C-alpha cells in the first residue's frame, strides 16, 4: 500500500479520514458482499458527516466526570477550560497546560466521531476549530453553508453538558460552611465534587513513569550497584492504587480506560513511630547504638554530614579567594530542621521503649547505665519505691542530654574520618560543635516533654 499523500486542504484531510475508516472496516470483505455495498453508502463523506453530526450528541468531551465518583451515578459532567480557573497557589486543574487532553464520556460506539474531531489541521484540532466556529472548517464540511454551520455547531456542542444540571444519589454531595454560624441551615452550600479526569491524566503518566519508566529502572539499578548515573530518579513512598470501574474501566471514561482503571493515590500518612516488635535493650550499656541504626536516623546523620561538608567547601572557597570566613552559615534553617528532626526521632524512640512492660530494666541481663534506665523505664517507679526515689533525686535528664550529644559527636566524627583533637581539623570541630549546640537546644524541648510527664504522674499518684 502506498503512503497516503499529506492532505493539501482541510477537506482532503476529512475525506482521507473517512476513507481510511472505510478501508479498515471492509478490509476482509469481498466487493460484491451486500454488507460492503451498504458500508460504501454509509461512508460517502457527506452521509458520514451528517451521521457523525447526529451521533456526536451521544458523546461529551469533559475535564471533570461523574462516573469515576461512582459507576452507577448519572448526571452532569463538565468541560471547564483550565485557564478559566483561579485556584491560586493550590494544586488543581488550572495547572494543566494549554494542550491538555480532554476525556470522553458517553456511548463508546460513537467514539470514532471523537477521533474525527481530534484530527489536526495546521496544528489545531477540528474540535478547536469547531469551538471557534472557524470559517475554513465550515467551508470544508459542506458546500451548503447552512448545513455546514449546523454540523460545526453540533460538533462544538460535544463539550456542552447534556440536559439540565443534575447530580445523583450515588454522586458525592457535601455541605460546606460559607458563613460563620454552623448552626444556621442557611450557612451552607452544597458542593458536588466531580473527578478531575483531565488533571489525573498527566498525574498518572508521571507516576507510571517513575514506577516503570526505563530511566527510573536504570536509576534504581545504578543506585543498588552504587554506580554513576546521569541525573536521578524518584520514589513515591507508600503509593496506593485504587481501581476505578473494576474490570470494565471503559465504562467510566475514555481516559480511565487508557489508564487501565488505575488511580494512583499519594500517601499522607503520619510518621510511623511504632515498630512492630520492641524488645528490651538487654546486654548492652546504652541504647544509643540501637537508635543510630534506625533508617531515618541514619538518613538524618547522612544529611548532617553533607551539610557540614557543604559549609566546609564554601569556606575553603572563601579562604582561597582571600575572604574572611562567614559568621553565619548557609541554610541555617535546614540545619535547625535536621537537628529538630533528630530530636523528634529520639522522642519516638523513647515512647516506643515506654511501651515495654514496666520494670523490664530489673532483668538480670539488663546492663544499661542507670540514667538510661531512668529515661526508658519510668513505669518501674510504680513498682519499686527505691527506684522511684533515686530517679526523682537524680539529674538523669541532664545525663541523657550529655550522653546523646556525646553519641552524636562520635558518630559525626567517625563518619567524617577525622580526629577532633587534631589542630588541623579545628574547623571541622567548630562545625560539629555548631551542630551539637543546636541539637542540645532541641533536646531541651524533649526533656521538657518527658519531665512534665513525671511531674503530672506524681500529681496523679498523690
Amino acid at each position, binding site marked *: 500500500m502506498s503512503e497516503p499523500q499529506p492532505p493539501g486542504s482541510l477537506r482532503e484531510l476529512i475525506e482521507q479520514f473517512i476513507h481510511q475508516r472505510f478501508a479498515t472496516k471492509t478490509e476482509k470483505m469481498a466487493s460484491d458482499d451486500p454488507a460492503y455495498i451498504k458500508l460504501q453508502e454509509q461512508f460517502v463523506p457527506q452521509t458520514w458527516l451528517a451521521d457523525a453530526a447526529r451521533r456526536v450528541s451521544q458523546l461529551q468531551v469533559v475535564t*471533570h466526570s461523574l462516573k*469515576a465518583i*461512582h459507576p452507577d451515578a448519572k*448526571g452532569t459532567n463538565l468541560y*471547564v477550560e483550565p485557564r478559566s480557573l*483561579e*485556584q491560586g*497557589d*493550590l*494544586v*488543581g*486543574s488550572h*495547572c494543566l497546560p494549554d494542550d491538555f487532553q480532554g476525556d470522553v464520556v458517553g456511548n463508546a460506539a460513537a467514539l470514532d466521531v471523537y477521533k474525527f474531531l481530534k484530527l489536526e489541521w495546521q496544528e489545531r484540532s477540528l474540535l478547536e476549530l469547531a469551538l471557534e466556529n472557524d470559517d475554513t472548517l465550515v467551508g470544508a464540511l459542506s458546500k451548503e453553508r447552512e448545513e455546514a454551520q449546523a454540523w460545526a455547531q453540533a460538533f462544538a456542542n460535544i463539550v456542552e453538558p447534556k440536559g439540565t*444540571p443534575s447530580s445523583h*444519589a450515588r*454522586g458525592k*454531595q457535601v455541605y*460546606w460552611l460559607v458563613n460563620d454560624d*454552623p*448552626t444556621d*441551615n*442557611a450557612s451552607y*452550600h*452544597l*458542593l*458536588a*465534587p*466531580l*473527578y*478531575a479526569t483531565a*488533571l489525573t491524566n498527566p498525574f498518572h503518566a508521571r507516576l507510571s513513569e517513575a514506577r516503570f519508566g526505563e530511566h527510573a529502572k536504570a*536509576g534504581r539499578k545504578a543506585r543498588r550497584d*552504587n554506580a*554513576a548515573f*546521569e*541525573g*536521578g*530518579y524518584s*520514589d513515591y513512598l507508600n503509593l496506593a492504587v*485504587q*481501581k476505578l470501574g473494576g474490570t470494565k474501566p471503559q465504562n467510566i471514561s475514555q481516559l480511565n480506560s487508557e489508564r487501565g482503571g488505575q488511580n*494512583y*493515590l*499519594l*500517601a*499522607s*500518612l*503520619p510518621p510511623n513511630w*511504632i515498630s512492630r516488635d520492641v524488645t528490651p535493650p538487654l546486654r548492652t550499656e546504652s541504647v544509643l547504638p540501637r537508635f543510630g541504626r534506625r533508617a531515618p536516623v541514619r538518613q538524618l546523620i547522612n*544529611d548532617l554530614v553533607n551539610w557540614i561538608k557543604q559549609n566546609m567547601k564554601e569556606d575553603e572557597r572563601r579562604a582561597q579567594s582571600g575572604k574572611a570566613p562567614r559568621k553565619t552559615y548557609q541554610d541555617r534553617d535546614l540545619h535547625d530542621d535536621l537537628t*529538630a*528532626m533528630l530530636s523528634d526521632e529520639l*522522642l*519516638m524512640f523513647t515512647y516506643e521503649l515506654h511501651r515495654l512492660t514496666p520494670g523490664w530494666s530489673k532483668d538480670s541481663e539488663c546492663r544499661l547505665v542507670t540514667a538510661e534506665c531512668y529515661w526508658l523505664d519510668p513505669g518501674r517507679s510504680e513498682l519499686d519505691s527505691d527506684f522511684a526515689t533515686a530517679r526523682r533525686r537524680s539529674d538523669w535528664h541532664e545525663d541523657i542530654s550529655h550522653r546523646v550529644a556525646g553519641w552524636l559527636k562520635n558518630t559525626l566524627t567517625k563518619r567524617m574520618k577525622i580526629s577532633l583533637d587534631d589542630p588541623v581539623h579545628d574547623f571541622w570541630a567548630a562545625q560539629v560543635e555548631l551542630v551539637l549546640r543546636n541539637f542540645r537546644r532541641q533536646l531541651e*524541648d*524533649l526533656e*521538657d*516533654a518527658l519531665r*512534665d510527664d513525671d511531674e*503530672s504522674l506524681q500529681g496523679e499518684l498523690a
Partner: protein
Amino acid sequence: MINHLLVLPRLRIQNANAISSPMTWGFPAMSAFVGVQQVLERNLPDDIKLVFNEIGVVCHHIEPQVTEGGFIKAFHLTRNPVDKSGGTAAIVEEGRSHLEVTLLIGVESEGDDLSSAERRRAIAQTLFDQVQGMRIAGGSVMPAFDTQQRNRPELISFSATESERVKQWRRLKRRLLPGFALVLRDDLLAEHTATLKAQDESATTLDAWLDLSRLNHECLVEQVEDEKDGKEKEVVQWNVRRPYRGWLVPIPVGYGAISDQYDPGEVANARDPSVPFRFVESLYSIGEWVSPHRFQKPDDLMWFVENDLGRGIYRLQNDYANTVTQD
C-alpha cells in the same frame, strides 16, 4: 488567641475513610474533622452555650487496612451484597484505617460560665460522651481503653497571665505525646513552585507538589585524589534531595468551583433543595506532621474554614506557617 480549649483525648476510630481525595490516601481529610466540629456544635444540648471556632487533630496511632509490604499498597476490600438481579453491584473501592486521635476544639462562651471548674468538667464530659456516639471520617468511635487521668476529657481555660498560659500549654502538650499533628504548608508549596519556575517557566504548582511528595534520588560523581597513589578517581555518591526538611505530605485542603453557583432547587437530584449548589473539584496543598512538643501555642495546630467565594474557593486554613516564618 485561643482562650478555651476542649480536649477530647484518645478517641479510637475504627474503619475511618482512608481515601481522602482522588489523589491522596492515608489520613482522613481535615474537612472530615472540621465536619465533626460543626456537627458537635449543631447538636449542642440547649443548656450548653458555646461557640466552636477551630479544630486540631493529634494522631497517636494509625493502622491502615492495606496490603503489607511491596512497593504499591492495595486496600483490603469488604465483601458487598449483590444487587437486585443477583449480580455484583458496582462498587467504588474504599480504603479504611483505624486511628487513635485526640481532638482539640477552640471554643468561646456564649453565655456559659466557663470560670467555674466544675462547669467546665461537666461540659467536657457531656461533649466527650456525645462524640463517642458520632461517626468521624466515616468510622465509628470505639469505647476508650481506660479512663486514666490523661485520657479524661477537659475544657481548659487559659490564664490571662503569659507565664501561666505557657505552663498550661506545656502540661497539655505532654498529654498529646506521643503523636503527630497535621499543619498546613501552603508557604512551602508556593516557594517551591517559584523555585521550579525560575528554572523552567512552564513549571506549575502540580510539579512542585509532586516534587515535594516523593523521594528524589540523585547521583553525584566527584573526582577525588586517592590518598595512597595520588591518582584521580571517581567517587559515586547517591543522595536524597529534599528541598525542605520536615515530614511533608500531600493533602487535600478543600474544593474549587468548576461551575457557576446554582440557586436552591435548580439542580436535579440534589440532596437538599434548600441550599445553593455548585460543582467543584478537589484542591491540594502540602501539609506537615509535627510532634506536639514543638508547638509554641495551641493556635498553631488548629484548622478552620476560610473561603474565597469571590474566586470560588472553598477551603481550610491553618496558621502554623505564619508562626514559623515569624521566628
